[in-house]
């Protein structure tokens, strides 16, 4: 499958759509793009390498906080902030990988969950980055003197998705990708065939953090406000939802998962109160959880497995 070409078509579609959609939906489109970016990275780590991470929101937070701190405190352009955010997320992932990646399955899930929460507590307790009130009025992206509006952010987000999917697409079809799949099938067997499992898992973990870090940096500037609650454990769980619903061993699964979860949230928020007037708040999570379970039982390889792509 030509990942790059389809991604380019999607990008053009988004670039056209933003001129017709109301600004609310343009914002949603940006959100879907950024979540998709995180989930594509997560799918490399969980779907292809067969690992599990319940702390991905923390890497998004590190990207967002780094970029915001550079922009607010150092007046550095968010373009550089994005690179710095990705680098910082990568660095933290690299260091944490020595702790987390020694563990498997259940214990790896617990370790990534714990690390994600500890990072969130650090956000909350660090006065320098605003503690619990976070950053306000984060400077936006600009090209020359042209400041980004909602439409430009949607295009930027989806351009990053296109690049992310093109890169990951090349990766999974290379010997690196095949080695990852070998690891997920059985680490011992993969090592017997000469795969350096530890090194590959580490590289993939760091790469997934880069995807999340970039998404976080764009998130910070496009919403111009972040605080620790934006990157809580619940967001990490949402990324797992997106990953599994879309199809965990599939790059398009990341995009479709993000689209389905965000769109479903919107639809449920509008439909359920009509049917059940007493319902309030974030109740759609009930349906998302139920859908997740149903999918895992009935369609364990996600929506995209129906398109025959997951076999790639």
């Amino acid at each position, binding site marked *: 499958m030509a990942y790059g070409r389809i991604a380019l078509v999607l990008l053009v579609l988004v670039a056209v759509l933003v001129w017709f959609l109301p600004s609310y939906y343009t914002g949603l489109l940006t959100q879907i793009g950024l979540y998709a970016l995180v989930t594509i990275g997560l799918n490399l780590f969980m779907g292809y390498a067969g690992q599990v991470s319940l702390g991905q929101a923390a890497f998004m937070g590190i990207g967002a906080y780094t970029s915001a701190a550079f922009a607010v405190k150092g007046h550095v352009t968010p373009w550089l902030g994005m690179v710095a955010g990705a680098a910082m997320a990568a660095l933290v992932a690299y260091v944490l990988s020595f702790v987390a990646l020694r*563990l498997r399955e*259940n214990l790896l899930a617990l370790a990534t969950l714990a690390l994600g929460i500890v990072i969130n507590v650090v956000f909350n307790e660090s006065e320098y980055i605003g503690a619990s009130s976070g950053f306000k009025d984060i400077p936006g992206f600009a090209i020359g003197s042209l400041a980004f509006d909602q439409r430009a952010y949607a295009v930027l987000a989806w351009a990053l998705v296109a690049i992310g999917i093109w890169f990951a697409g090349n990766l999974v079809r290379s010997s690196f990708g095949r080695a990852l799949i070998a690891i997920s099938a059985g680490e011992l067997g993969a090592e017997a065939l000469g795969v350096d499992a530890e090194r590959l898992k580490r590289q993939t973990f760091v790469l997934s953090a880069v995807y999340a870090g970039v998404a976080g940096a764009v998130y910070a500037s496009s919403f111009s406000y972040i605080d620790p609650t934006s990157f809580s454990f619940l967001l990490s769980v949402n990324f797992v939802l997106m990953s599994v619903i879309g199809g965990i061993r599939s790059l398009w699964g990341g995009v479709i998962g993000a689209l389905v979860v965000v769109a479903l949230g919107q639809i449920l928020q509008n439909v359920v109160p009509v049917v059940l007037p007493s319902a309030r708040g974030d109740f759609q999570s*009930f349906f998302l*959880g139920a859908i*997740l379970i149903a999918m895992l*039982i009935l369609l364990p390889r996600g929506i995209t497995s129906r398109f025959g792509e997951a076999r790639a």
Partner: protein
Amino acid sequence: MIAQLWQYVLAGVVVGAIYALVAAGFVLIYQVTGLINFAQGEFAMIGAMTVCALAASGMPAPGAAVLAVIAAAVAGALCYVLAIRPARGANGVTLIFITLGLDVALRGLGLFIWGTNPLSLNPFTGGAAITIFGGALPPQALWVLLTDAIVFGALYVFFRHTHAGTAVRAAVANPPIASTFGIPLRTFAFWSFVAAAAIGGLGGVVVAPITSATYDMGLTFGLAGFVAAVLGGLDSLPGALVGGFALGIVEKLAGGLLSTGWEQGVGFLILVLVLVLRPQGLLGRAARRA
């Protein structure tokens, strides 16, 4: 200063007693099924919300408490029947995702049924705070500790002195051989969910008068329950008790001496350290599951 520290320790003992109950549920399910049930904290939420809602509607507290525990147990049974059993044979990561889905779904359901407002419950018995060496303990704390004593005592008697308990231990020690002796593994898995949910629900009932109940309380208790269970050893019930109290005390000390933010953070730092340095926990046996 010493008096202040002592007060933190007493506060830690009270929350620790609840963590121990949630952790006991984790350990029960993990021992019997090898599964980490991320939805465990939600059973405490169901227990607490049910007892508060029923008591608010005028039902006498003891009746409401019994119904709340039953409600949690039924939720546990449904979780197993609807989500875990149909997925048997799935790999470990898939089962993690399923229990995460259960956690999300149960929390959403709690919000659906009870809304976002916190519900409160009167303490089981009135009276002034009890002072122990100058530190104050609310009367409800005694109910919490009594519940711990009863639950862990009952679990001890069940596992050590009953035929069924011995069968469960055999099933945990060696599932294939236990199975050839006619020990019904799948039935045990079902009852481990029911028991874990009932214990979690009971924890929610006794804690409701201390921390008023909200639909999202399950997350806090669930996460603390993991830390306690891993700290004590995922395959050790006494470990759950020790881990629960240790975590509660450390949390309250960190919260009092550092900041409230680190009250939760310190537990997870400990969790990471334990996973790296001593994955079997304080009282667990080494390398049962690599």
